[in-house]
């Protein structure tokens, strides 16, 4: 990175953080701190909700996923628009009518204190861990590729956000997210334009897309019924619906975003904005990954995208083997370049047999390259058993650092930091609010002043920031960061959603029955997670259905008998 890149990066981050502080500098109102003020309108809510969900992992991992496995990941979001309609129609009117600050307050009003605390506790555990990963994810990748100190990178990503979130609360978070999302969208648009610009001049856009299709990278929709497959239309529609319903309906980091401003119209329009635009946005980010794949059909990609790890391994006794693999890789890649040209020529002639033959040959060559990459990963694993050999998270950022001009590199690193900060801000804001509203106020200091709760909220937000940064400092890299977040969410979300759906739709069920059902469901999901290989999206459905059915069963049997006794 050059001085220009650093200037773009730091000026962007500093300007947004200062804007957040400036917007809330004279505001010392507890309500505004927890719930925002009327300056937050539906556009801000929409961007804020989008920025909360789209973390740095989205922009690092998602293009890499498309590069490796194609566009299938977009199906993960197929249930989202319908979930948001349900949230708008069912959840939002109740939250507004009861004037709750956190979603779990509603559980206290509907059931009892222990069910409220269970819901809030599950949220704190799940979101507290996720907040650490949110900060850690970009830091580990940027530090590896840029040679930055990992701890300093984590502190840079973490301290900025802890500072303005602690000082400004919900209002600062919502307003900064609006500009962070603007930077993110602008940055990704520029990246897409630059990829197209860097493609060979004799290759048209349609030819590039056609090559991607022939290589199997545009498989966005899969209608097969296979429970072992991670992403299909059905798992995305059904599992994704439950995941999104739980995330948007019951996760305080999102609930706090759309309740900000206090207008029911603003809340609903903010969510519907996401219901329409989320799928195209995810498709676009995945498509950027596919275009990076096409770019690397003409420009030789590294044998292993985590180059510092590869170079380190090259210095060991496995260096000879890696060099041999590199030679084979270079040869096959040169052959494949001819293969790509043969395919584009066949496309120009529109000869179906020629296109089929060229496609088959190209796929064979790609398979050979994949085999060599697999052998390389095994060799790297032999050198360092702890090394994470999945390098998909490094694909997009490697492209940015090696092939984009200075200034734009700084902008795209700023995109990644903005995304990390926007997600972390919502998480810390929600963790602090939930701890104060659901634990501190009812259990420790029930009758203190607003000023007391304001100070407690700020201290607890800062404390959660410290927890997240500490977790990030001691975390280890996991297989694929975006999947790690989704898996973690899916383990807990089903049970939480089940509690809320019982609250809304099974009016005869009372607190003890739903509480016992939720504990049972959570235990069952954890056992299945550790003992089976079910696609993780199904845990959302399973956890929810178990809570719904068991709570009805318990209410009609065990707790009915107890109530009579």
């Amino acid at each position, binding site marked *: 990175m050059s001085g220009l890149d650093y200037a773009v990066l730091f000026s962007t981050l500093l300007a947004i953080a200062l804007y957040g502080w400036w917007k809330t500098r004279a505001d010392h109102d507890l309500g505004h701190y927890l719930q925002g003020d009327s300056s937050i309108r539906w556009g801000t809510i929409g961007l804020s909700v989008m920025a909360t969900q789209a973390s740095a992992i989205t922009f690092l991992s998602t293009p890499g996923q498309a590069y490796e496995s194609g*566009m299938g990941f*977009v199906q993960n979001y*197929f249930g989202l*628009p*319908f979930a*948001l*309609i349900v949230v*708008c*129609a069912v959840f*939002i*009117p109740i939250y*507004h009518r009861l004037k709750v600050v956190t979603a779990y307050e509603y559980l206290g009003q509907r059931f009892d204190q222990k069910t409220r605390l269970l819901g809030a506790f599950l949220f704190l555990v799940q979101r507290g861990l996720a907040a650490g990963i949110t900060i850690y994810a970009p830091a580990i990748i940027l530090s590896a590729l840029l040679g930055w100190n990992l701890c300093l990178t984590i502190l840079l990503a973490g301290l900025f956000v802890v500072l303005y979130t602690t000082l400004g609360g919900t209002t600062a978070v919502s307003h900064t997210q609006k500009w962070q999302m603007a930077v993110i969208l602008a940055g990704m648009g520029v990246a897409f334009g630059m990829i197209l610009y860097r493609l060979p001049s004799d290759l048209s856009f349609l030819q590039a*897309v*056609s090559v*991607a*299709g*022939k290589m*199997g990278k*545009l*498989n*966005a*929709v899969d209608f097969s019924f296979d429970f072992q497959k991670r992403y299909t*239309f059905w798992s995305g529609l059904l599992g994704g619906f439950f995941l999104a319903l739980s995330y948007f309906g019951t996760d305080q980091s999102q609930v706090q975003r759309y309740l900000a401003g206090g*207008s*029911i*119209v603003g809340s*609903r329009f903010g969510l*519907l904005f996401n*219901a*329409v635009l989320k*799928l*195209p946005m995810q*498709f676009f980010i995945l498509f950027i990954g596919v275009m990076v794949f096409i770019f690397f059909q003409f420009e030789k990609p590294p044998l292993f995208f985590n180059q510092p790890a590869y170079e380190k391994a090259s210095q060991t006794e496995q260096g000879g083997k890696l060099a041999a693999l590199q030679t084979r890789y270079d040869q096959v890649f040169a052959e494949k370049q001819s293969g790509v040209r043969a395919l584009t020529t066949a496309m120009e002639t529109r000869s179906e047999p020629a296109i089929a033959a060229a496609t088959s040959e190209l796929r064979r060559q790609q398979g050979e390259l994949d085999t060599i990459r697999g052998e390389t990963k095994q060799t790297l694993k032999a050198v360092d058993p702890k090394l994470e050999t999945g390098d998909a998270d490094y694909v997009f950022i490697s492209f940015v650092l090696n092939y984009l001009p200075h200034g734009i590199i700084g902008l795209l690193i700023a995109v990644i930091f903005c995304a990390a900060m926007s997600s972390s801000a919502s998480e810390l804001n929600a963790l602090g609010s939930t701890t104060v509203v659901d634990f501190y106020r009812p259990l420790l200091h029930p009758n203190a002043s607003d000023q007391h709760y304001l100070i407690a909220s700020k201290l607890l937000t800062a404390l959660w920031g410290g927890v997240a940064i500490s977790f990030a400092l001691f975390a280890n890299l996991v297989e694929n960061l975006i999947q790690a977040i989704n898996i973690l969410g899916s383990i807990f979300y089903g049970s939480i959603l089940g509690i809320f759906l019982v609250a809304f739709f099974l009016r005869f069920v009372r607190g003890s029955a739903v509480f016992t059902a939720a504990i049972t469901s959570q235990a069952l999901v954890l056992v299945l997670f550790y003992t089976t290989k079910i696609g993780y999206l199904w845990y959302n459905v399973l956890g929810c259905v178990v809570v719904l059915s068991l709570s009805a069963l318990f209410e009609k049997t065990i707790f009915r008998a107890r109530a009579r006794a």
Partner: protein
Amino acid sequence: MKEPSENSPAENVRVPLFGTWRKAYIAVAIAFVAEVSLFYFVSRFFS
């Protein structure tokens, strides 16, 4: 934009652009069908 009050349930408020919330939800569902159809078309057409 008229805001709902205690006496005017959100469902009764005239919704900008769509008229009612029901129409807004139907518009979202139509947008979903259009988006997935486009993704499917892209998958099939270029494969």
